[in-house]
């Protein structure tokens, strides 16, 4: 049975619908990441689970119990805020002990619980410091410690790493994964960073425009996106998209003419809707190479606009004759100069989308 069930949940602020008919099930112990661009409704959904935001319509159930009208403190959830929300006038110990002090726990019990959490997060030596005397990473750990001492059924993280520098984010990501392994508690994490989502999530929920676009394991979403938004949002650099005309439809393949390509090419495909005359071709950078000649099956003349050389990988951002941008990835390769080139598409990596952006799948 799902630990958290969100059923037909919607939310509006005046005339603006920020969440539209959200349905989601989260199992006990799962690490779920809500990911999407700013304003997609992911933080609102998290705050509705926490109780800090009223639920417009629909139901949220926690362990089978409807919690729509339950006070935030009684839902059994703990939240880690983007700003850490550590009280500046209290020490790390007092911050972590605050909920227990409010609940009138005995002092010895408070000390035991705080020290246990501090031990998990390696904070023992920082307990007497105030937030102003802690680094960003330490503050974040204290904020997580404050959540741990409450022994919640569900941890909620609202973009907790966005204030940290890149190195610290990577380190904290690893620590969160270890923490999840140790506590085995359900964690719901909100981020706009798809790399963070990919690395942390057991289950990723991609949101856009207040709607869940797709939900599943990170690599499933990467390999098999449900629509153009998910395909473009997941993966860095984003997937390349090109317009194509459907030249011929056969029972086991279709023939596509990509705008700007030197030749038409066949793509294995079963059950293609022959009424579709135009499609969008999506292809990830790892399926696009560069060549000096133009003999291969799918070759597109391109002009190198700029190059990102990262050492282990080089991304060449090229412009196609019709003005579309095509990013080519070269593992370990080095850019040798030159503007004009021919991009080669490996057709095994091609995904098709209709004009509305929905995925067109081949019949199995």
């Amino acid at each position, binding site marked *: 049975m799902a630990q958290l069930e969100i059923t037909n949940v919607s939310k509006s602020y005046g005339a603006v619908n920020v969440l539209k008919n959200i349905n989601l099930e989260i199992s006990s112990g799962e690490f779920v990441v809500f990911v999407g661009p700013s304003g997609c409704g992911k933080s609102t959904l998290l705050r509705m689970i*926490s*109780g*800090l935001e009223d639920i417009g319509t629909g139901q949220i159930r926690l362990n089978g119990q409807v919690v729509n009208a339950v006070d*935030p*403190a*009684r839902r059994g*959830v*703990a*939240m880690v*805020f983007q*700003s850490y*929300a550590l*009280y*500046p*006038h209290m020490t790390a110990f007092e911050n972590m002990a*605050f*909920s227990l002090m*409010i*609940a009138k726990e005995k002092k010895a019990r408070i000390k035991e619980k705080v020290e246990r959490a501090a031990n998990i997060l390696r904070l023992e030596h920082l307990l007497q410091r105030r937030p102003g005397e802690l680094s960003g990473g330490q503050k974040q750990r204290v904020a997580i410690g*404050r959540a741990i001492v*409450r022994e919640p059924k569900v941890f909620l993280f609202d973009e907790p790493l966005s204030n940290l520098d890149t190195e610290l984010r990577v380190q904290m990501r690893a620590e969160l994964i270890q923490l999840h392994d140790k506590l085995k508690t359900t964690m719901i994490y909100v981020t706009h960073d798809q790399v963070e989502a990919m690395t942390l999530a057991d289950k990723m929920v991609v949101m856009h425009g207040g709607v869940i676009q797709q939900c599943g394991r990170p690599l499933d979403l990467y390999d098999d996106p449900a629509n153009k938004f998910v395909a473009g949002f997941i993966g860095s650099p984003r997937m390349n998209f090109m317009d194509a005309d459907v030249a011929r439809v056969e029972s086991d393949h279709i023939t596509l003419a990509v705008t700007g390509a030197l030749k038409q090419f066949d793509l294995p495909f079963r059950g293609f809707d022959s009424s579709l005359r135009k499609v969008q071709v999506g292809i990830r950078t790892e399926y696009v190479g560069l060549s000096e000649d133009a003999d291969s099956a799918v070759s597109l003349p391109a002009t190198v606009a700029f190059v990102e050389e990262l050492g282990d990988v080089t991304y060449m951002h090229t412009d196609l004759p019709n003005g579309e941008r095509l990013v080519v990835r070269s593992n370990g390769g080095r850019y040798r100069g030159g503007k004009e080139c021919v991009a080669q598409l490996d057709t095994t990596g091609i995904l098709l989308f209709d004009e509305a952006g929905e995925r067109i799948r081949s019949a199995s």
Partner: protein
Amino acid sequence: MMVFPFMLLFAVFFLYPIASGLFYSFHDWNATTSTRFVGLGNYQRILASRDFEKAMWNLGKYIAITVPLGISVAFGLALLVNSFKGFWSNIFRSAFFLPVVLPAFLAATVWRWIYTPNFGLLNMILGWFGMGSINFLNDTGTMLYAAIAVDVWVSAGFNMVIILAGLKNIPKDYYEAARLDGASRLQQVRYITIPMLYPVLFFVTTYGFISALQVFDVPWLLTGSSFASYGGRQGALLFPVMDMMGRGFGSLRFGQAAAYGFILTAIIMLFTAAMFALRRKGYDR
């Protein structure tokens, strides 16, 4: 050269008055005859006078009630205004700030009417509950409290605006974290709002102390005082600044008035130093 104009103005309008005041405080002078050096005589006469004792006693009681009461009322009003948004917030804020911009004589006139025996608003209300008429501004048991009520009414709006600005600076996340931790509204005020407002509360408390030490206009106007007669019945509303003014412009003992000014300045400086020392102690803790 660039600072010369400033130094000149500073010398004429600050240093000279202070120096001449200090000079007169050691002299007997009634503005018509020449000065006569009396050493610490003026200071001794003031400190030994019954009026000074009465004024300081009134001031002590006045400060002990006005400062905590004034700040509590202002804090309560700030919390109230902060709980509203938009139109109602503006309406309440303006309404509570109105007494601050009201001229003191107008405020005193309004309150003299409220306090009037028999026909005054307050006595009318008390009458509804079967209570007899009270002469608030002539009964030595009520005069001080009547003046305190007016002063709190006048000053609350100013302190409220400052506290309100402090409240607006407390991040919303703190309250949300506290809500999730199970803190009630009252606990949120106790554990988050008040500690987060310490610097603001320190300012309004210090300012409140300094203002209270200089109390003059409201009791002067409420009692219809003049330099010939001031401080109300039996000196129930006699305060140091009033006593100082009376000695100067009433009895033409300007030397004593100057000495009084320096005694008051010393008291204000001591209070302020004590407040800063307390604050530092609070930080160290």
